[in-house]
């Protein structure tokens, strides 16, 4: 084989290698950054509409990130969990402004409570219309369901983290933890509750954790 042909072949292999790296590592990294930016924009819109929710979303995202690490989720599952945490409340834009900003939660009627409770469904319905995010819709919708083995791990983790953050904001960390413990096995996946309590909120846990594993 002539030397120049060999050099050209080596150049082609080198070019293939560089493009392979770019396509498999650099492009996905950029895409992830871009998607996170977009999701942050959605989240900012909700926080501006309901300032009382400010910080909750960030806390939820950070808890989900911790739990993904603790539960040894795959990078793909961890990414979709974080995306769900960022997007699960975009449906709040359909909740009347006055309900959250002007009326204390204790004074809500049953109908108002029901309106509020269905916001993850609204979020899921909105995401279904967005091709690149539609795969997250069932995960967000299923976070409303009680624990059973068939639920995706992302929905189960989101349920635990979401309920903890919301109860903590309204009633404090101790009650939020207690509720998780009481609901483990029925409402919540006990393995996730255990991981949550062990790694994230160890102090207020009673010594014996009544969970079924």
């Amino acid at each position, binding site marked *: 084989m002539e030397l120049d042909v060999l050099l050209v072949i080596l150049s082609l292999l080198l070019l293939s290698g560089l493009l392979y790296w770019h396509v498999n590592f650099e492009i996905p990294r950029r895409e992830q950054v871009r998607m996170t930016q977009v999701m942050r*924009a959605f989240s900012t819109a909700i926080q501006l509409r309901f300032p009382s929710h400010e910080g909750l979303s960030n806390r939820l995202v950070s808890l989900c990130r911790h739990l993904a690490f603790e539960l040894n989720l795959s990078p793909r599952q961890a990414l979709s969990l974080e995306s769900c945490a960022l997007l699960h409340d975009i449906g709040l834009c359909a909740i009347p402004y006055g309900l959250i900003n002007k009326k204390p939660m204790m004074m809500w009627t049953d109908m108002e409570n029901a309106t509020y409770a269905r916001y993850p469904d609204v979020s899921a319905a909105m995401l279904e219309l967005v091709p690149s995010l539609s795969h997250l819709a069932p995960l967000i919708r299923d976070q409303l369901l009680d624990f059973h083995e068939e639920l995706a791990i992302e929905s189960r983790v989101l349920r635990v983290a979401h309920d903890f953050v919301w109860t903590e904001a309204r009633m404090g960390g101790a009650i939020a933890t207690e509720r998780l413990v009481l609901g483990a096995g029925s409402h919540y996946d006990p393995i996730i509750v255990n991981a949550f309590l062990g790694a994230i909120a160890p102090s207020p846990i009673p010594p014996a954790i009544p969970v079924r594993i």
Partner: protein
Amino acid sequence: MRTRNDRAPLVLILAGITCALGALFIFPIRDPALAWLVLPMLALITEFLPVQFHRRGILVTFSLPFIAGMAVVAGVPGAIIADIAVGVAASAALNQARDPHAGYLRTVSLSNGAIAVFFGGAIMSLVPGESLTGAMMQALIFTLIHGMTNLLLVNWLEAGRHPLDLDALVRRAAMPLMVYCLLAVAVGSLAWRDAAWALPLALGPVLGIRAIVKSQAAVGNTYYEAITTLAMMLQRAHPYTHRHLARVALASEEVALRLGLGTKRARLVREAAILHDLGKIAIDEDILDKPAKLTAEEFEHVKLHSEFGEKILMPVAEFQEMKRWIRHHHERPDGTGYPDQLRDSQIPIESKIIAVVDAYDAMTGGAEGRDKRSYRDPMTPEQAITELDRCSGTQFDRAVVKTFTRVIAGGTL
């Protein structure tokens, strides 16, 4: 390819036929070699792996390095025959012939290819190809001229009657074209050396380029999906009519084009117009829908929406330019607007355009007055134009009002 200029594709098809026939008679065809068989086969494989830019209606294929190789070993007629044969074979295999629209697009695309091969081949022929270096130079020149001609033609069709945004075009295409040129040099030299067995190795980089182009298409999709979702959130929070946003977007783009902003910038203005009231997500809908004059306190609350719009778009890199336009779409040339009381020259022209078009649409409630605001009856177009004229120079920019009036009078919308 979607186009707003109906005659352009026809002109292109005629030019393509002329170039194809001209090339067969003007340029010599070289001695057959094994590469004559291998290169079209590789080109055909890449034709089955196109990337579609749905929004722009463009289908990108990746056969150019192999067509460049054909030009080097078989001459320009060989490259034209291979290009057309591969295109027709792919079209037949993909059943595009049964769909008249797909067949028409394929014809336009083949004509485009024939013109690009003709010009690439003509310039390439000026370089002697008797040595390996000459063959490499020929492949490089062919790819460069072919790529640039192709890009110009596609963008000419896309831009229709509006001027080409050459600056944006060069920035977008420079990197892929450079990689393409390197690849074509490799393919050309292997084909010239008759190392046909090594040519399939070029498929690796071609697939890499395809993945990069595909990711560019996906980036575009993410961007538009973000706009759609934000607009959807606004609709959910405040029942804006989709028609209002669509009309304001369309008219803003038209005015931007007429003011000479360029196609890419005009498209950005259209997208900003869709999102101009995004900040109203965070405004109390009871105030926005109030069927009476707002109190001072209520008006202060409503005024926050332009700042909120900017804040929402802040995290996204692609929105950096338009977030400023959205922040200032309620500024007035006389300096009494909000939120920053900017003076005339400080207000971005894009914000001025959105302000005029939005005001007109709000006054008229759309062409048939169906989307009237809750607190007043819609004006006729004539009354709304008179009102814009009256406020020209104080509330609205004079040049923008004048251009917008011409757009309305011309019945473009």
